[in-house]
């Protein structure tokens, strides 16, 4: 078998000799930097008051009723973070990261969007604007543009999600790809794409990704039985990202958070999903071990959910919620919040956890202090209408 480097070298040789009339192929290994950033979108509205219960808030238990997570130390109780907050018991693998100083939690956070539509809220989360936009360019795509353009980004999706969409080409990959068509056929098809740039670029990127995967033998690995529902994608991503030639910025998404009914408390529908998510993150951390000290993972959702249960044992669309930061590059454990409280008069519109932290300030701080983009560029070209949004200091270990 020809390795990727030999194969690429062969192609470059042909290009140099003018024998191959194809446009140069997308190549990953151009980045001057080796830091990794993974952005996980939790689609559907993760219930922050369940995932990170504010067990120290005097109003929490009464307000949440049957959905309340018990205090640390009680049966099925929360896993303690500090005297105000705990983790949902299904998130035990994250608690280990907390003790290792590799987990931070952001609470009472949201985008600037307030109107409780999934689709608009996700649009704002991904475009990084003040309100929904039809422009179709995500903030991570703009950041990739500043980092040097194509070859750095990968979305674990069939097509790039909005946050990764835009002028900079990104790769996409989905767990479980098969052996695929022959190189002969793909070369012929590529000629049919000569006057269709979008097809040509997508095919070139897909071929490079497949080559990388062939080396890592990720396909064989992701076919292992008995892994959790989410784990194969996370493990596949890890094996791509730990490779020197692999992507530096990646997105992943986890769906199923829209728990309108029967969401449960310490056990139940939401607990199962939280458990799968935590298991997948633990697998990611393990497989990223060689580069974990250079990695930050941010997981955020489009909105939190109503503070009180609805009439059907679940929660409806709300406003502020919780987000997670994980990684060996973090400056220790921490809960980042300006906690608004849960008394009725402190709830947003009398029903939702009130937003006090703009999620964009977290994203922007990671871009500045971890990815290494200049603050001025972040303000003028990534989060362009965030005004004088503050950055969060000391997020990243320097």
């Amino acid at each position: 078998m020809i390795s990727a480097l030999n194969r690429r070298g062969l192609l470059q040789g042909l290009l140099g000799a003018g024998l191959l009339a194809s446009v140069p192929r997308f190549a990953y290994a151009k980045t001057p930097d080796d830091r990794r950033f993974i952005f996980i979108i939790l689609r559907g509205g993760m219930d922050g008051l369940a995932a990170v219960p504010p067990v120290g808030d005097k109003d929490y238990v009464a307000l949440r009723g049957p959905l309340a997570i018990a205090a640390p130390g009680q049966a099925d109780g929360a896993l303690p973070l500090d005297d105000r907050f705990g983790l949902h018991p299904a998130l035990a693998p994250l608690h280990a990261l907390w003790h290792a100083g590799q987990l931070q939690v952001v609470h009472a956070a949201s985008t600037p969007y307030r109107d409780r539509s999934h689709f608009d809220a996700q649009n704002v989360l991904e475009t990084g604007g003040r309100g929904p936009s039809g422009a179709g360019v995500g903030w991570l795509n703009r950041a990739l543009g500043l980092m040097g353009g194509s070859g750095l980004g990968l979305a674990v999706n069939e097509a790039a999600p909005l946050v990764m969409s835009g002028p900079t080409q990104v790769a996409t990959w989905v767990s479980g790809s098969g052996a695929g068509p022959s190189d002969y056929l793909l070369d012929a098809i590529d000629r049919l794409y000569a006057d269709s740039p979008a097809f040509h670029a997508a095919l070139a990127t897909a071929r490079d990704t497949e080559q990388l995967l062939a080396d890592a033998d990720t396909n064989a690995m992701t076919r292992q039985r008995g892994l959790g529902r989410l784990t194969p994608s996370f493990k596949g991503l890890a094996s791509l990202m730990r490779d020197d030639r692999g992507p530096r910025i990646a997105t992943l998404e986890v769906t199923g958070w829209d728990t309108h009914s029967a969401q449960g408390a310490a056990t139940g529908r939401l607990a199962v999903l939280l458990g799968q998510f935590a298991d997948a993150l633990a697998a990611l951390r393990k497989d990223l071990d060689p580069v974990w000290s250079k990695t930050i993972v941010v997981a955020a959702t489009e909105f939190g959910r109503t503070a009180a249960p609805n009439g059907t044992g679940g929660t409806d669309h709300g406003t502020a919620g919780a987000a997670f930061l994980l990684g060996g590059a973090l400056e220790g454990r921490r809960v980042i919040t300006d906690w608004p409280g849960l008394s009725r008069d402190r709830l947003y519109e009398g029903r939702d956890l009130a937003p006090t932290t703009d999620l964009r300030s977290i994203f922007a701080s990671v871009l500045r202090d971890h990815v290494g983009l200049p603050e001025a560029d972040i303000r003028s070209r990534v989060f362009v209408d965030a005004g004088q949004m503050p950055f969060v200091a000391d997020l990243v270990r320097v």
Partner: protein
Amino acid sequence: MSREAFIAANRFGLGPRPGELSALSGDPRGALFEQLKSGPVPTDLPGTAGALDVAGSRKAMMAEGKMDANDDGRPDNPVRELYLREVTARFDRCVASAAPLHDRLVLFWSNHFTVSVARSGVVPLAGVFEREAIAPHVTGRFEDLLTAATLHPAMLTYLDQYRSVGPNSKVGQRKDAGLNENLGREVLELHTLGVGGGYGQGDVIALARILTGWSVVTGGGDTSKRFGFDPNRHEPGDKTLVGTRIREGGEQETRDALAILARHPSTAKHLATKLVRHFVADDPPAAAVEAIAAVYLKTDGDLGAVTRAVIGLDAAWADPLAKMKTPWELTVAMARALGGEAAAIDGPLLFRRLRGLGQAPFGAPSPAGWPDRSTDWLGPDALMRRIDLGADIANKAGARLDLAALLDGTIAPVLTPAKTQFIKGAGDRASGIAMIFASPEFQQR
């Protein structure tokens, strides 16, 4: 073979079957108008009540310990079996259809009113929902379509309505149960007015209250669910929805509310935008949207008239490759191009293929349905899988096919002479067919 026939067969159809392009060449628009007169195809699949019985039989098997929730993938799981029958029948219907525009409308409106098997309760109902709540109304009045879709058990299940209880209803006062806003919100946001269509949180709650009562109506020890209106769950009192007072009236409130929403100018604009995006361009031209919205309002939501107006748009006949085919459309188009030599892609394999292409049948990721812009379907991995699907089908079906005839019957009207020569010169027949299927001319519509 005309370019307009190509557009009629692809933009408004499901890809040409052998001979279809020449049949359409005389009067493409007239042929499409004829297709609109077609109705749902008869079937021996169970109706809504029968599908609910199938769901009940799975429950009964679980109650008797014959299977548990982890066994849902088992071939004798009656719900899985029904789902696969529905998917296969839908595929066969699309592949054989002589009125593909009608099928496209069913797919469009079924996506507009998404119910997804992402919720397990929807699995036995998604197919019958499309056949009984959507298909009969796609050239009728939108109000009827909206009412049928909103009140079908599949929708009541998917968006949690069946659990919602009016807090001041008889059941609400007796039990610790209350409102669920999910269906009310999505009817306003996704199905009628659209985002920015002039409603607020108060309207969401008002519609949620109006909708209380549509639920499971229990009938003895039967394991099947029966759906209907239960006045004991309905929130009493008048309600105000988008500025209009709706008098207390039990289930009539829902019909009054949906009638108001169906006639709202925001609904006209929202539906027109989606239709033009689907049939004309990812970024719908404003003039075209206004024209379609005007027809909608003038005809009181006559979807036959609205569809004819979309066909009448000049913009719809400008760029033959303005849109990406969805994975479903693409797979159907390949089977149609082969003239029904589609045995290679039915049943569980079809399901696996479509899931791999990012569009599991009846499995949209959210109530907003499948996305409808080219960029949503043209990711690198997705394109590779599309190429792979075409190559696989070509390998299985290729030996019996005439490459030149396939080319003429599909993409020849929009292919450059150089590309035509290149494909005809392919090293082997299967590769040539795979190249046709992979070409931008075949992948787009």
